[in-house]
C-alpha cells in the first residue's frame, strides 16, 4: 500500500512538469509578450512612455532573458508561493486568485456532493425498476442533463427565477454584505446564492453518473451470485445494498478525478453568466486583456488541482476496492 501511494505521488511530478511546460508554451503563443498589451493600454490612455520606462518594465518582468530561464523563474515561483504577477492589474496573481479560488473550490465540492446525492437514488431506482415509467423519466432527465450546455441552464434558471419568483439570481453575496466580516447572516446569504451554481455545474455530471450507476448495477444484478443469494432467500434490499451496490458504486469515487476538470470548465462559463467571484471569469478577463501570465497561472492551478484530485480518487478507489492491486 505504502509503495503504491509513493509511486503514484512520484508519477505526479513528471505529469505536472509536462503540464507546466505545455502551459508556458501556450502563454507564449500570442503575438507580443507580457507587457505589449499593457503598453498599448497605457498609450491608449494617452500617457507618454519613454524608451527607458519600457526597458525598465521589460527588465522588471525579465522579458529579455532566454525562454528557458523565464520558464524556470515562473515555475520556481510556485514553490515559494509566488504565482506570478499580473501586468494589467499590477498585483501579484496570488492576491487576485486568493478568495476566488476558495469560492471555486467551495462550488466544486458542493457540485460533487450534489451529484452524489442526486445520482445515487435516481440510478439505483432506475436499475432495480428497469423499464418502469420512473426509469424512463430518469433516463430522459439524464439525456437532457447531458445535452444542455450549462450556461444555458444558468440563463434559464435566471429567467425563471426572475419571472416567476422575483428573485435576483447571480453573484454569491448580496451587496449589503460586500466587504463585511464573516458573520452568520453573511453565511446564510452565501448559502442562498451558492446552490444555484452548484446545481448548474453539477447537472451534467449527475446525468452521466445516473447512466453509469444504472448500467453497472444492472450488470451486477444479472450475475449468478445475486441469483444464488436470492434463491437462498436473502432479503432483497439487504442483498442489493450489501453486494451489487458496493461494486456498482465505484464510479462515484473514480469519476471524481475527471469530474474536477468538468467542474472547472463549468465554472469558467457559468461564473461569467451568473457573475460569480470565482476564478473562471478572471481567466476570461485575463485572456481578453492578454494578461497571459495571469491566465497561465490560473490554468496551472486548475490543472494541479485536477492532478491532485485524480490522485485522491485513485487512492480512495484502491482503499475501498480490494480488486485493485497495489503492484
Amino acid at each position, binding site marked *: 500500500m505504502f509503495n503504491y501511494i509513493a509511486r503514484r505521488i512520484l508519477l505526479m511530478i513528471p505529469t505536472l512538469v509536462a503540464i507546466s511546460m505545455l502551459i508556458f508554451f501556450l502563454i507564449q503563443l500570442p503575438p507580443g509578450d507580457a507587457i505589449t498589451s499593457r503598453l498599448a493600454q497605457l498609450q491608449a490612455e494617452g500617457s507618454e512612455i519613454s524608451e527607458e520606462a519600457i526597458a525598465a518594465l521589460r527588465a522588471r518582468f525579465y522579458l529579455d532573458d532566454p525562454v528557458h530561464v523565464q520558464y524556470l523563474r515562473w515555475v520556481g515561483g510556485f514553490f515559494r508561493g509566488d504565482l506570478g504577477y499580473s501586468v494589467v492589474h499590477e498585483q501579484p496573481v496570488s492576491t487576485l486568485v486568493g478568495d476566488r479560488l476558495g469560492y471555486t473550490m467551495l462550488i466544486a465540492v458542493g457540485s460533487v456532493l450534489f451529484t452524489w446525492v442526486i445520482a445515487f437514488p435516481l440510478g439505483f431506482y432506475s436499475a432495480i425498476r428497469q423499464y418502469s415509467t420512473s426509469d424512463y423519466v430518469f433516463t430522459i432527465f439524464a439525456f437532457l442533463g447531458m445535452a444542455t450546455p450549462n450556461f444555458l441552464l444558468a*440563463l434559464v434558471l435566471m429567467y425563471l427565477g426572475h419571472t416567476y419568483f422575483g428573485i435576483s439570481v447571480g453573484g454569491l453575496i448580496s451587496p449589503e454584505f460586500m466587504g463585511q466580516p464573516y458573520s452568520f447572516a453573511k453565511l446564510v446569504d452565501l448559502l442562498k446564492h451558492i446552490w444555484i451554481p452548484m446545481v448548474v455545474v453539477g447537472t451534467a455530471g449527475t446525468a452521466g453518473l445516473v447512466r453509469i450507476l444504472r448500467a453497472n448495477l444492472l450488470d451486477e444484478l444479472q450475475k449468478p451470485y445475486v441469483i444464488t443469494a436470492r434463491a437462498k432467500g436473502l432479503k432483497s434490499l439487504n442483498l442489493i445494498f450489501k453486494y451489487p451496490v458496493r461494486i456498482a458504486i465505484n464510479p462515484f469515487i473514480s469519476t471524481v478525478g475527471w469530474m474536477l476538470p468538468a467542474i472547472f470548465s463549468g465554472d469558467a462559463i457559468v461564473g461569467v453568466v451568473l457573475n460569480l467571484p470565482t476564478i473562471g471569469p478572471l481567466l476570461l478577463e485575463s485572456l481578453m486583456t492578454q494578461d497571459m501570465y495571469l491566465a497561465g497561472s490560473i490554468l496551472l492551478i486548475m490543472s494541479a488541482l485536477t492532478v491532485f484530485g485524480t490522485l485522491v480518487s485513485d487512492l480512495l478507489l484502491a482503499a475501498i476496492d480490494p480488486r485493485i492491486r497495489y503492484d
Partner: protein
Amino acid sequence: MTEPDPQTDVPTVDESGFPVAEMTTSPGGPVSDASAPPPDAADLVYASQWKLMGRRFCKHKLALVGTGILLVFYVVAAFCEFFAPNDPTERDATLILAPPQSIRFVDEEGKFHFRPFVYGYRMEVNPETWQRVYTPDPEKRYDLVFFPKGEPYRLWNLIPMQRRLFGSTEGRVLLLGTDTLGRDVLSRIMFGARISLTIGLIGVVLTFCIGITLGGIAGYFGGFTDHAIQRLIEVLICIPQLPLWMVLSAALPGHWSALRMYFGITLILSFLGWTGLARVVRGKFLSLRNEDFVVAARLSGTGEVQIIFRHMVPSFMSHIIASATLAVPGMILGETALSFLGIGLRPPVISWGVLLQQAQNFQSVAMAPWLLYPGLFVIIVVLAFNVVGDGLRDAADPYAE
C-alpha cells in the same frame, strides 16, 4: 444464517421493488422476436458485418428518430439560403426585439381562413419604462405562401435564386422574433446551423485521424512509443478542457479572416478531443494484436501496414464510428461555449454560440426570452447525436443481445 421465513419474506420482495419475475423476463423481453427464426435467416448467415449492424440499428427506434432529426438539420443547414424566410443580415430599426409571430388560421373576427397567416406588429412605447412594446396588428395580415418571390440571393454564393421555401409577399415573417438589431432570429438560426453543425463534423474527422494514428501507433508497437503517447494523453486530460480551449483560441490572431478563424477553432476543438478516441483504438489494437487472424496474416508474410489497414482497422471500425458520433456533441458544445464567451467565432459570422451571445446578460433574457431559441436547437442536436451514437454503439457490439 437463519432460515428465511417465506411468509415474511414474500411481501418484502414486493415492497422493495425487486420482483424476481421481472428480472428473469427482462433480458429476454425486448428481443423475444429473435428466438423465432426470421424469414431471411439464410441471408443473415452470410451477411457482412455492416449489414448486421444496419439491421440491429434499425431496431433501435429512438436512434432512427435521432437520425431523422439530424438529416433534417443537415439538409436545412446545407440549403439554409433557401429555407430561411428572410435575409439573416437584414436589419430593421423599427422592429427591435420584436416577439415571435404566431401562425394563425382564425382572424380577429373569428373567421377561419384556409391559408395560414401572421399579423404584423403595432409598436407602442410604454410611457413609464420607455420600452418598446410590440403587439400583433390585425390591420396587417400577411398570408403565408410556399415559394414566394423575394429579394434575389445566391445559393452557396453561386446559383442566383429568388424563391424561398415559405414566407409572405406582403411583409416580413418573423416566427421566432427579432434580435437587438431587428434581424430575424429563425433565419439566423438556420444560417448558424451551417457553421455550428459542420464544425462538429469537420472537428470529428480531424479527431478521428489524429486519434486512430496515435492510438494505433501506441497499441500496435507498444513499448516505449506506447508509454510516451499514454503519458501525453494523461497530461492533456489533466488540463480542464474549456479553460485550455479558451487559452488556445485567445492565442489565435484577432485579424484572421472568418474562414481561417473557423478552421482555427475546429483545430483547437480536435486538439484535445482525440485523447478519448486514441485510448479506445489503443485498447482495440492491444486486444487484437495476438488474435489468430492477425498472427496468421503475419506468418504469411503480410506487411505491417497491410495488417493494420486491411485486417485490424476494419474489425473495429464500426466501434470507432460509434465513438466518433458520440464525440460530435462535445465539439458542438465547445464551439457554442467559446463563441458565447466571445473568444470563439466573432459576430459577422453566424453560429449558434454567436447568436447566444446576445442572450448573455440577464436583462436581455428577461426582456426577450426568444433569444434563447438557438440554445433549444443546440440541445436538440446534441440529444440526437447522443441517441444515434448510443444506437450505433449497441449495433456495433456483436455480443449485444
